[in-house]
């Protein structure tokens, strides 16, 4: 049933967020440290095990994949609820600091990518798209 997949996904998110919160507590930071990241790792490991055990039925998978497919619309909704007005009208210091940080971050990517380069990370061909991709 689809709810099994959605429940598995939700369980992973809750576990990850709790771990992230506890790490934040341990290092004295009032933020969720890597909660979503831990949730992703947990989902990868759990779904791998369940698939190997043969208990991941097709409807169960659809309960996860629906949320993956609805990701872009959710990001659009997120964009529509950002404080864009404040960002644009918050003064030159904020705009220069924010914009420069983006340019620096993007510019450093090719440099960091040179470190520890492996032959397995050649660019992806414009190949098959994931399920639910509206393209």
């Amino acid at each position: 049933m689809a709810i099994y997949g959605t429940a598995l996904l939700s369980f992973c998110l809750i576990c990850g967020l709790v771990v992230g919160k506890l790490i934040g507590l341990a290092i004295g930071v009032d933020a969720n440290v890597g909660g979503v990241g831990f949730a992703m790792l947990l989902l990868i490991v759990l779904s791998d095990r369940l698939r190997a055990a043969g208990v991941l039925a097709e409807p169960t998978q659809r309960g996860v994949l629906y949320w993956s497919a609805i990701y872009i619309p959710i990001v659009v909704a997120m964009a529509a609820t950002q404080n864009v007005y404040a960002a644009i009208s918050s003064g030159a210091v904020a705009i220069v600091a924010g914009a420069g940080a983006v340019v620096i971050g993007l510019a450093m990517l090719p440099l960091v990518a040179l470190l520890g380069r492996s032959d397995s990370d050649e660019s992806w061909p414009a190949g098959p798209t994931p399920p639910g991709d509206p393209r």
Partner: protein
Amino acid sequence: MNAIWPSIEAVLTKYSLVTAFTLVGAVVWVAYAIAGRLAGGRLHGSAIAILMGLAAAYVAGSFTGGAKGVADIGWLAGVGLMGGAMLRDLAIVATAYGVRLEEFIKTGLSGVVSLLLGVFSAFLFGATVAYAFGFRDPVALVTIGGGAATYIVGPVTGTALGASSDIIALSVGAGLVKSVLVMTLTPLAARWIGLDNPRAAMIYGGLLGTTSGVAGGLAATDERLVPYGAMTATFYTGLGCLLGPSVAYIAVRAVVGS
């Protein structure tokens, strides 16, 4: 006639999440139609949809004076629920489904390096800009530097160090500018900086850090890269909040004096 809109509005407000699904679906449909016909494939449909969302948020913010974009309009509040942290994080985690574990582990070191570089370069650059604009107080410098990291790192750092509210507002502004620009510039810059494989996406997430920006930017570039970038970006804010009021503040104070 005057009674018609209030009746409709009552329905839209009561079923606000359903209203949001309808509207966002319509926006995405229009965006993909534009991408297919007018933009000739140069700009991805999701990038256009995200830009339309940002534009709507700007217009709504200028009318309502609120901080939540279109969600400050009563009958559009459901868009805030749909795009809020809860469903966003659920969807981000779902994108990891089917990703192989080895790919994450193999690129782990690049991720760690990029996280440290990303956080420190943001603090350094933000503080330098603030210094150039005449700020001399190390608390103000490091708070605005935190804003150049993310709009959460700035206020957390400022609050921990006792910065004034106008400085904290500036740091939030810097973080918001960053988030909006990451969403819009990433698809344009992707080809130049080699953002087309899982390892580059993990480095990208660690360097830029803003979860909303990275999520939107990668979605507009290549949806398959989302789990990799989101994976590292999720550690960035926590690391920034940890390093800001401690290492970054001590370093800034050592340079400019207290």
